[in-house]
């Protein structure tokens, strides 16, 4: 069976596209699939360092497209997971170096060899974003629960639907249950109501994410981390499994205890 091509985008930068690509890809590979990651953020190469593969780069995406090398020569094998490969972005070129047609052509050519191809899209709604979108069958939109990121996500969702891809699914990243509980962060329901999309995953804000990036080891390899668990569940859902959303709970702190003591009602659920 042919593999599926997913594009991961967000509109706004820094919300977790690269993190999501690395983790969902690793989790799918850990589940036994053959997975290819393509870093389409040309000029701002990132996925290689997040995966800890920066020292193994020989060729890049632009060289593959320009037929300087075979796609297989540019694929870096992951150091932790079998069946996981990365085609890194070019660092010295800009987004005009490739066209959507070319990226699509490459994916079509590689589809038979992989179960999943994940494309890490650049931020924005410019050429680089369009290239990545053109090559994909399905889209995952990553956002954080803040006004700017959601506004940009809505724009991107509009483009994706207009391009004829199926309705994108959402990963809501960097959720802080304590803030949700206090009413200082929009709930999952708020976000889904605004964007009218399906939820693919709920990922908490997690310090382990930074540690994992420092080490170049995706957080899904840390079996104790909450964010890793969240991404493992995303991978299961991508496969079509029906797993419950991660419950994001805060332990009762002094504040909550006080609130209960004085009997204030209408607490905002943090299980969002």
């Amino acid at each position, binding site marked *: 069976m042919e593999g599926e091509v997913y594009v991961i985008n967000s509109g706004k930068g820094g919300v977790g596209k690269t993190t999501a690509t690395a983790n969902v890809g690793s989790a799918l590979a850990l589940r036994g699939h053959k997975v290819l990651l393509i870093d389409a953020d040309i000029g701002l190469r990132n996925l290689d360092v997040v995966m800890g593969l920066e020292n193994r780069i020989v060729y890049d995406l632009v060289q593959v497209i320009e037929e300087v090398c075979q796609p297989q020569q540019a694929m870096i094998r992951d150091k932790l997971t079998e069946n996981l490969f990365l085609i890194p972005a070019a660092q010295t070129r800009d987004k005009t170096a490739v066209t959507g047609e070319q990226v699509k052509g490459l994916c079509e050519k590689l589809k038979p060899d992989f179960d999943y191809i994940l494309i890490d899209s650049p931020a924005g709604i410019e050429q680089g974003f369009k290239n990545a979108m053109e090559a994909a069958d399905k889209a995952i939109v990553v956002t954080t629960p803040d006004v700017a990121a959601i*506004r940009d996500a*809505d724009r991107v969702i509009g483009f994706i639907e207009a391009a004829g891809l199926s309705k994108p699914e959402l990963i809501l990243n960097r959720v802080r249950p304590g803030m949700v509980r206090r009413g200082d962060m929009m709930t999952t329901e708020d976000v889904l109501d605004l964007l009218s999309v399906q939820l693919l995953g709920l990922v908490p804000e997690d310090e382990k994410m930074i540690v994992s990036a420092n080490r170049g080891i995706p957080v899904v390899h840390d079996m104790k981390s909450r964010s890793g668990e969240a991404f493992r569940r995303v991978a299961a859902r991508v496969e079509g499994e029906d797993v419950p959303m991660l419950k994001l709970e805060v332990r009762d702190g002094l504040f909550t205890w*006080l*609130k209960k003591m004085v009997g204030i009602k209408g607490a905002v659920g943090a299980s969002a």
Partner: protein
Amino acid sequence: MAPALENLRGLVKRPPAIGNLKGIVKRAPSLENLRGMVKRPQAFDNIGEFVKRAFEKGEASRFEAHRRLQLVLLQDRSSLTAESLEALKNDLLVVMAKYVIIERDCLEIDIKQSGESLLLIANVRVFNDGEAVENPQPLLSPKKTAALKNSLLETAANYLPVDSDSIEVEEQHFNDSVVLVSSIRIADGESFPERKERTASLAAS
């Protein structure tokens, strides 16, 4: 081509809306309330009062974000200014009021991408005396419905490039009220960004 009612139902996630409509009315805190919540750094009588204040203040920020985004996304999707949107909403309300008795402040408009079309969706809660009915009768005759559709289209066309044969109006009957769900397709066969540019220039002219 008009979007099938089936589709519409999926789209209009909000209108099993009664609950939501209520929620929206409740959610939008009046300026009065907001002021009360946000300032006043005076000493509190007791810790309970303090916790309560802090909590209410927090609540306001999440609701505020949601409310502001609702409006911003509507503007982004339609490229209409806040004033034009407000005017469109008022005009639609005036039209509907000629056909049904509507509850005050309960018109919700939304603009949504459905596949490759962009839809203007207007939901309004129709006043009802609250009697639960076993087999609800349609509020409007087919003739009236057709007339309402025409008027809605004409109104919307003052603001957006609407597709003239793409309007759907559906009555959704609930225990204590009826929601009138209307959807109109905006423009035709254009992709989202191009259409946006067009509606933007339309709004500017």
